[in-house]
């Protein structure tokens, strides 16, 4: 039981403890937040939900539970427009997607106001954004709920993250 041994084991234990420093916190309850104002870009919640693996995974559940795939398929579109391309009829930012889910849109998109909690809508929007591969690649869920003939979207190795700039988001027609 030399001091050597003790020092090495202390260092090892410290190393084991270290990963917990960088852990993503799970916000189970959702903060009681005020209603967001429709159409506003720059809601602080957008950043909070978008890159968060837990919220994206929850959104993925709701996507099937709320039958989004009934019209949008798993991103490819059907009766509803596809969600995996760069075309957004009503804007493709987090805030605008939440707005679309909450208010509904003409020609078939129902309103989920008062059907989903505020947090669930943000989680759903976070997942919808992943369909067009916009958020962080390392936050994407490894599991898929649908049959697919492509590789899982989680990447084997880390790539530099390409983000669309907020300016480009703004410039797009809403």
């Amino acid at each position, binding site marked *: 039981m030399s001091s050597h041994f003790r020092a090495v084991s202390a260092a090892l234990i410290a190393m084991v403890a270290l990963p917990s420093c960088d852990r993503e916190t799970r916000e189970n309850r959702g903060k009681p937040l005020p209603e967001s104002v429709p159409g506003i870009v720059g809601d602080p919640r957008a950043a909070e939900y978008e890159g968060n693996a837990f919220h994206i995974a929850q959104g993925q559940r709701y996507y099937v539970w709320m039958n989004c795939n009934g019209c949008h398929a798993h991103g490819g579109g059907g009766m509803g427009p596809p969600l995996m391309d760069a075309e957004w009829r009503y804007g493709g930012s987090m805030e605008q997607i939440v707005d679309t889910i909450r208010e509904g849109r003409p020609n078939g998109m129902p309103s989920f106001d008062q*059907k989903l909690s505020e947090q669930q809508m943000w989680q759903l929007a976070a997942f919808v954004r992943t369909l067009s591969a916009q958020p962080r690649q390392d936050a994407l869920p490894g599991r898929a709920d649908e049959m697919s003939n492509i590789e899982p979207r989680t990447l084997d190795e880390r790539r530099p993250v390409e983000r669309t700039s907020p300016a480009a988001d703004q410039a797009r027609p809403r």
Partner: protein
Amino acid sequence: MRRLLPGLAAVALVACEGRQSVTGGDGLHSGQFNSLFLIFLLVTAFFYLLVIAFLVAAVVRRRGRAEDRPEKSGGEGGFRLILIGWVALVALGLTGLTAASYFSDAAAGGARPANAIRIAVTANQWWWDVRYLDPVPANTIRTANELHLPVGVPVHIQLKSNDVIHSFWVPNLAGKQDLIPGRITDITLIPRKEGLYRGQCAEFCGLQHAHMALDVTVEPMETFEAWRRSQLRPAPPPATPLAVTGYNYIMTQECSACHNISGTPASGQVAPDLTHIASRRSIGAGTFPMSRGHLYAWIADPQSAKPGNHMPYVGLEPHELHGVVAYLETLK
């Protein structure tokens, strides 16, 4: 060692509690497993004692000094006989154990009896979705986190999972069977004794794995049929003004997006069916006993009651909360 003993005794005591007990033997298959365990215990104990006896004899007799040993040992024949006997005994014991294990396995995994009641259980994080299947679709019952079984009648349960691997385990009635996403597995139960039992998910499935229980009621056939008929009835319309408030909230707001209440517009399919929630023994998959207080706590803030479960925090106003609980309590 003296300090360890009470701990060991406590571990052993866990098996004694009646409602969830591996040694209960209240089902045909768990009874068979109990006999199998007893056979293994007796055979292995016999061999253990035999080996210990030989060891003790060897120590006691000791090997004599070299000068004491006779020129030519006379015991060669006897030794060979003992060796042959020993090998034969081991072979016999192992064959017996293999046969016992094979036969109880075969009985547990045997063909499903023709008169079996058919049930489909789907596991979710962290609750059990239960459907009593019937050739007539209108007679299919959907409930959650509870099983009612008539005593003595075989029950064939089809097992599916919606998310991760779970395991169906009612220790009093039978062994475990895993529920694997994308596959259908099955298990047959034959309850032999009336009573209340507790099933438990037996495969770690996430945060609330421990709170994923199943209330099993084994009852006489008439009681079971009465329960079945009551479950087939749609929900009664709300009678009091308070219950009407709750009814209106559930039908028009978040609740009905996920929950189903037969006979009303609430038709969500992704959360436990609430048509007869007040007739169940517990809420939240065995997390709390069914009571007004626990219903309030659960609906007001499900994430404190069972953190991580998929019911979101809705944030009802007090009058809405009173109404929703009042209405749910009428759903017998």
